[in-house]
């Protein structure tokens, strides 16, 4: 048995599996893709030959949304086992079906070139105050690339980046934005490509150390998770990180932000990385609750029971993903919300893509907005 897999089985406590099947019962993928079952994969990992597990195409179908971990009565960390399996599978040349012809992965691998002089700051306009050095860094992530790559579905994820800087400016913070930051490597890691993940991480850590910042703020939950969990784990990274929703929530409780009233119904999608991975459920809700006159309706499955947006790490996008997305959109619509508040750029891309699908009926069309953008647009400017 490959030592890394046996170590992962131990660390994730997979050997405790009692085959109850709660994981498969709750898995959003299994609900539509009946060929996929986390339980079967756990059993394969424990019982059968490694190659049998590594060559199984289903190891790439997992969204790593952590819903099964949440429900597992034996407390098995299924996504950690999945990650270890993928890292090993990549070594023997197995790989996922990458969506968009692998364009996203290629972009990230190109970014591992140390000599690259990116031109990724064009979106910062005169209204946004940024600095070249300081204590606080705003980590943009891949948003400029996403907006260009997905211009056919007309998403504007950079709005969230602009809104984040606007909020930070409002709080008297002028954040540093690094012109040569790279992708955080989240998607390469979860796609099993550790080698390139490491290159990106080392580049980012080096850039950040050189800039001398003391705190990093994220608007992308995946970047936040990677910097908070994975960089310390693999590279001993130890700079303070925070998500913009945490900053907003703090600012609201300290009465640093006053919001205009908004007379509509909204609902909120917990992104898997922010919610189940890092346990941030209350901060976005505090921010929404602070808006005067707003009506907030929870979806049936919320907080730690929230359903993921259907694709992770740009892999295995399929009709199953579309089914997951459309079902989730329908759930959002059923709350009678006028506005579907999201807090992850990928949720925004995936849901908007699903709404453009020909299967999408009226029952699953709803206007989406990022939480930061939503809050930034409601800030009363006169209040300082």
């Amino acid at each position, binding site marked *: 048995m490959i030592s890394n897999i046996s170590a992962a089985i131990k660390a994730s406590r997979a050997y405790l599996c009692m085959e109850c099947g709660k994981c498969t019962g709750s898995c959003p993928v299994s609900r539509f893709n009946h060929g996929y079952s986390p339980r079967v994969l756990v059993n394969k990992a424990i019982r059968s030959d490694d190659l049998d597990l590594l060559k199984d195409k289903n190891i790439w179908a997992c969204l790593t949304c952590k819903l099964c971990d949440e429900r597992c009565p034996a407390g098995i960390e299924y996504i950690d086992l999945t990650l270890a399996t993928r890292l090993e599978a990549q070594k023997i040349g197995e790989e996922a079906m990458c969506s968009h012809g692998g364009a996203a992965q*290629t*972009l990230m691998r*190109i*970014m591992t070139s*140390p*000599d*690259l002089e990116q031109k990724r700051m064009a979106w910062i306009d005169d209204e946004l105050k940024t600095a070249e050095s300081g204590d606080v860094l705003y980590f943009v992530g891949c948003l400029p*690339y996403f907006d260009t*790559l997905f*211009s056919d579905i007309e998403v504007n994820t950079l709005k969230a980046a602009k809104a984040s800087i606007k909020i930070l400016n409002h709080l008297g913070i002028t954040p540093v934005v690094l012109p040569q930051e790279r992708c955080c490597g989240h998607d390469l890691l979860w796609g099993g490509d550790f080698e390139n993940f490491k290159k990106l991480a080392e580049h980012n850590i080096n850039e950040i150390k050189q800039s001398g910042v003391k705190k990093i703020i994220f608007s992308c939950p995946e970047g936040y998770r990677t910097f908070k969990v994975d960089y310390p784990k693999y590279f001993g990274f130890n700079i303070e990180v925070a998500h913009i929703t945490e900053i907003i929530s703090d600012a609201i409780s300290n009465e640093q932000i006053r919001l205009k009233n908004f007379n509509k119904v909204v609902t909120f999608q917990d992104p898997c990385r922010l919610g189940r991975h890092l346990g941030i459920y209350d901060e976005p809700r505090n921010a929404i609750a602070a808006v005067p006159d707003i009506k907030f309706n929870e979806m049936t499955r919320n907080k730690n029971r929230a359903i993921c947006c259907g694709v992770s790490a740009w892999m295995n996008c399929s009709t199953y993903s579309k089914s997951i997305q459309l079902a989730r959109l329908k759930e959002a619509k059923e709350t009678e919300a006028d506005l579907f508040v999201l807090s992850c750029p990928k949720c925004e891309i995936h849901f908007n893509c699903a709404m453009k699908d020909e299967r999408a009926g009226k029952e699953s069309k709803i206007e989406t907005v990022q939480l930061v953008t939503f809050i930034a647009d409601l800030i009363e400017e006169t209040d300082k």
Partner: protein
Amino acid sequence: MRPSDNKTTQFEPKIVAFCCNWCSYPAADGAGVARLQYPTNIRIVRVMCGGRVTPAFVLKAFELGADGVLVATCHFEDCHYMFGARKAADVHKITEKLTEMLGIEKERLKLDWISSAEASKFARVAQEFTDTIRKLGPSQIRKKTLDNLKAEKTHD
């Protein structure tokens, strides 16, 4: 003379050309039949239609060490699939933006329209594009790969 025979230090770029099956590929074929000379730096990948060339194709070529990428399709009016060449032009705009953001010089990526009767145009475009890339030098991404290879060799 093959590039490898050239003992001078002239830089020999690697160029990937995506040529559509109905116009540009036959044009390249015609150039060969007519014995028109064009640089051997061009490696042709035949695609059924220029509209099939997504940003992923071009980026992958750059990732694997291409110094330049040429996308050659039919003229708008005589596209075999009616809309393919126009689609190629639309997609090309997205690819251009992405490569520019990545810091790859915009001259390294070129879209051109070459009909199957324009063998001489193919040879000319190939020559001009190769000259441009030769002036630009190796791409940043390729440089890295070469450096890594050198480092690995000295390490051995």
